[in-house]
């Protein structure tokens, strides 16, 4: 079949048998919840769809449902995610295994509906596992794996997975579904054993933690996020077996062996980077691609290992932290102890093509050979702005 990234997510959430969906529409995510409500209306999916008045309420409802032991899902984007933010942290710090799709979109002002990753990355410290998808197929695959990772007893933390606005959300590609039986075997019906609220046995929640307790609570969340690395890899390898499609775990290495230049990428443009690596290799430039599929927990060890001995490292950020640099660039720098060449590119949905990635790889090699200092480069910026250092 053929489907958009948005519809792929809806098919995945249906296969995962989510029980409660609370959501508020926002471009370019709306198709996800439209399709889910259609499934429910037609009786193809057994779930409660809650039409809420805001994203903040959507996440609050998901937390409530999760607290009662239900498998809960929502989807949002950009401004909606920021409006939801208080509850996003509540879900993460409260260890509610909610799953959320984030269609990554630039933040306003000025208004933009196009692709950027700053929205999802703004929530990276909320105690959620953060996954970024490369293709429509991966959006489907991730939406099923997300529930398994979130609900795993060793983790019990919420999972959000990102798909790039339009270049994934509205792009149609071939999509292969797994059978419901396979989905059920991979992700058993929710036992709800994370349930904390029982109306038969009333207790109070949301109390204050004194300074005597808080540090230990945070520490236990840290431990679970750490533990999730292995669970994410397990889910990927098990889903590879079930689906017959090779799944990336924390990272995906593409032609990294012997690479002199490595493109470090995230999301839908990763495929363009791979095509660029192929083209460069044909021309004798040893290029490789390191795709970060998981942003939290940050796969520092894998990154260190993959980038070892590389002459030039080009981290391409479709996001920005003002006053610092590209977010992924900074995190890669902290993981490796060496600043990469940090390319800020594709901001606000500006197209990022195979030619761009090939150009970035060549630029990084040139800078490395010239012994230039590491720093940020605003790739493809128009006008008189000099590349910033």
């Amino acid at each position, binding site marked *: *079949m*053929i489907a958009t990234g948005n519809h792929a997510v809806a098919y995945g959430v249906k296969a995962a048998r989510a029980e409660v969906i609370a959501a508020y529409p926002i471009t*370019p995510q709306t198709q996800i919840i439209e399709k889910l409500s259609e499934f429910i209306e037609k009786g193809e999916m057994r779930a409660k769809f809650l039409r809420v008045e805001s994203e903040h309420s959507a996440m609050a409802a998901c937390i409530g449902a999760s607290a009662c032991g239900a498998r809960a899902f929502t989807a949002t984007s950009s401004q909606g995610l920021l409006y939801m933010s208080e509850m996003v942290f509540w879900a993460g710090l409260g260890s509610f295994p909610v799953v959320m799709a984030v269609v990554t979109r630039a933040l306003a002002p000025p208004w933009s*509906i*196009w692709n950027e990753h700053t929205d999802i990355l703004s929530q990276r410290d909320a105690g959620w596992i953060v996954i970024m998808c*490369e*293709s429509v197929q991966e959006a489907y695959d991730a939406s099923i794996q997300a529930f398994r990772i979130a609900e795993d007893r060793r983790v019990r933390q919420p999972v959000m997975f990102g798909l*790039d606005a*339009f*270049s*994934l959300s*509205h*792009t*149609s*590609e*071939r999509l292969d579904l797994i059978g419901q039986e396979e989905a059920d075997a991979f992700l058993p019906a929710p036992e709800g054993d994370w349930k904390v609220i029982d109306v038969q046995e009333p207790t109070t929640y949301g109390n204050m933690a004194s300074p005597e307790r808080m540090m230990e609570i945070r520490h236990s969340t840290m431990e679970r996020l750490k533990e999730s690395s292995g669970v994410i890899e397990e889910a990927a390898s098990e889903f590879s077996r079930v689906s017959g499609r090779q799944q990336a775990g924390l990272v995906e290495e593409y032609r990294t062996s012997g690479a002199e230049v490595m493109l470090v990428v995230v999301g*839908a*443009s*990763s*495929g*363009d980077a*791979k*095509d660029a690596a192929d083209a460069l290799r044909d021309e004798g430039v040893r290029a490789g691609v390191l795709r970060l599929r998981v942003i939290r927990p940050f796969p520092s060890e894998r990154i260190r290992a993959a980038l070892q001995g590389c002459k030039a490292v080009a981290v391409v950020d479709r996001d920005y932290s003002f006053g610092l640099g590209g977010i992924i660039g900074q995190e890669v720098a902290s993981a490796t102890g060496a600043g990469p060449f940090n390319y800020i590119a594709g901001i606000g949905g500006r*197209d*990022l*093509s*195979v*030619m*761009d990635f090939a150009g970035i790889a060549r630029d990084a090699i040139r800078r490395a050979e010239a012994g230039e200092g590491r720093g940020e480069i605003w790739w493809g910026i128009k006008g008189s702005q000099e590349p910033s250092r």
Partner: protein
Amino acid sequence: MFLEIRLHGRGGQGMVTAAEMIAEAAILEGFYAQSIPLFGAERRGAPVSASARISESPIRRHSQVRSPQIVGVCDPLLLYMKEVFDGVAEGAILVVNHKQEPQLKGFRVALLDATGIAVGNGLVSAGWAILSTVIFGAVSKVTGVIGKDTVLGVINSRWKGEVAERNRRAAESGYDGVKIC
């Protein structure tokens, strides 16, 4: 084979749907395919475009189509817009919705009165001819890799009854009627 297609039309003419159907038909023919809308705020009548890729191997890239070998032009006035020719190499085929052959040096033109076919089959909404199925038929033919039965199959999976019948007739006329000048 790696084929890139770009459709230019006006908001409301069905370009996004046409690109989706082209990709769907190519997948049914055993290829890998992708359709990409160039999305903005939806405005009826404003110039819009949508693209598709067809390949023998998996398509990994998600950037916009920049050098299409086939370009669909659903309103002859769009031929005055430079965007229509962006990245279009010499030898590319332009499928033009017009009654007469436009003079375009360096390109091959495939001519089709898509509006006439759409209107003739009652495919009109709010005063606008809906060209998605006509263009889908015509471009599918021009690709050389999509059969007419596949085109009709895609239409049957999307519409039912009398609406499907009108769209089938429109697609068939597009498929059979497109004339490479």
